[in-house]
């Protein structure tokens, strides 16, 4: 049996004190607390302070939590409410548009280089013979401009010779055939019709 002086000389160690606060009270610690008022008071003071801290911090947390909006259920389409999703979608659209425009520009830049589609209305050319299904008769006085097929380049001299030949043929045909109008003494002025079944002439 320890005497009072021995008890006072050997107060609770830190480990014993921590075990006391943790609730594991060995019999030696219990005996010491009964005999040593200093350790008993200190244990009461520390555990009381921790209890006060627990109480105060709980009140603080409850007040703080009460002032904040509560979490709501997540909507079914949660991503609709996320700005990151919208930013990603906008970026994807911008990238797609960029690729499309770039590809279009490249294609447009490549066409003049080979000259395959540079036929214009101002270029005099003799068109390749059209199939009957593709042949269209223009209205009177309207020049025919064909753009569907690339036309071979013809020199002006050749073009003039062709036109003279066709004019001569026209003249012969008009002179040799009677039309319903000529039969009744009527004159019909037909100008500018250059389309023939075997081809078209543009000037």
């Amino acid at each position, binding site marked *: 049996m320890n005497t009072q002086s021995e008890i006072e000389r050997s107060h609770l160690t830190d480990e014993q004190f921590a075990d006391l606060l943790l609730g594991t009270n060995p019999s030696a610690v219990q005996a010491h607390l009964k005999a040593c008022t200093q350790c008993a008071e200190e244990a009461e003071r520390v555990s*009381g302070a921790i209890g*006060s801290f627990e109480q*105060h911090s709980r009140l603080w*947390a409850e007040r*703080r939590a009460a002032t904040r909006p509560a979490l709501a259920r997540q909507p079914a389409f949660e991503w609709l409410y996320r700005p990151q999703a919208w930013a990603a979608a906008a970026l994807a659209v911008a990238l797609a548009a960029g690729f499309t425009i770039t590809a279009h520009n490249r294609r447009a830049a490549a066409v003049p280089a080979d000259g395959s589609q540079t036929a214009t209305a101002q270029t005099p050319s003799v068109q390749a013979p059209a199939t009957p299904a593709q042949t269209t008769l223009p209205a009177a006085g309207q020049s025919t401009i064909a753009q569907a097929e690339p036309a071979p380049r013809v020199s002006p001299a050749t073009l003039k010779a062709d036109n003279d030949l066709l004019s001569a043929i026209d003249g012969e045909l008009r002179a040799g055939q009677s039309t319903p109008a000529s039969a009744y003494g009527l004159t019909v002025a037909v100008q500018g019709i250059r389309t023939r079944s075997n081809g078209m002439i543009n000037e």
Partner: protein
Amino acid sequence: MQLALDPDIIACVTAEPTLTELNDIEALDRIYRSRLLRFVAYSTGDPDLAETVVQDCLLKAYNGRDNFRGDCAVYTWLAHIALNLVRDHQRTRKFQFWRKVHSTAPDISEMSQVLPSHESSPESQMLARERAQQVSIALETLSLKQRTVFLMRFIEEMDLQEICQATGMQISTVKTHLHRAVKAVRFKLGGRIE
């Protein structure tokens, strides 16, 4: 971020699975928000950061509720998630974190204006407030691990096994941190240190 507890730190079944509250985010928020807020606020020393962490924690828990296997209490699982989030913040914003610990820690003097009515007298209320303040100051001197296990044990009243599950530490490590934390608090409260 790890949502499920590591299998090696789960030693025993401590609680029945309470999946109903995990399936209802409003119930989850109502039941656990203030507890988590207190734990994270005093772990980090930053109430504003604690708000963010708790928000993330509850959302992670709700979204990952299928990972909860029911082999520990829901709060233990939530504390584990919150602790990982705190560590993430520590890693990513170490400087700001430690700077804020000393500048924006929860102020006991503010919170103690709402004292429970069963306190015996104004003097005892004042004394309790001062002691709580001393504990709060002592907590700021602890490392994160010491502070975490101290809060879990004495404030959240988790047992050692639950602390092991939430922190992933061995029980001997938990005890060591607890002893050091108690020693610091005891010293701050004017106790005798051997």
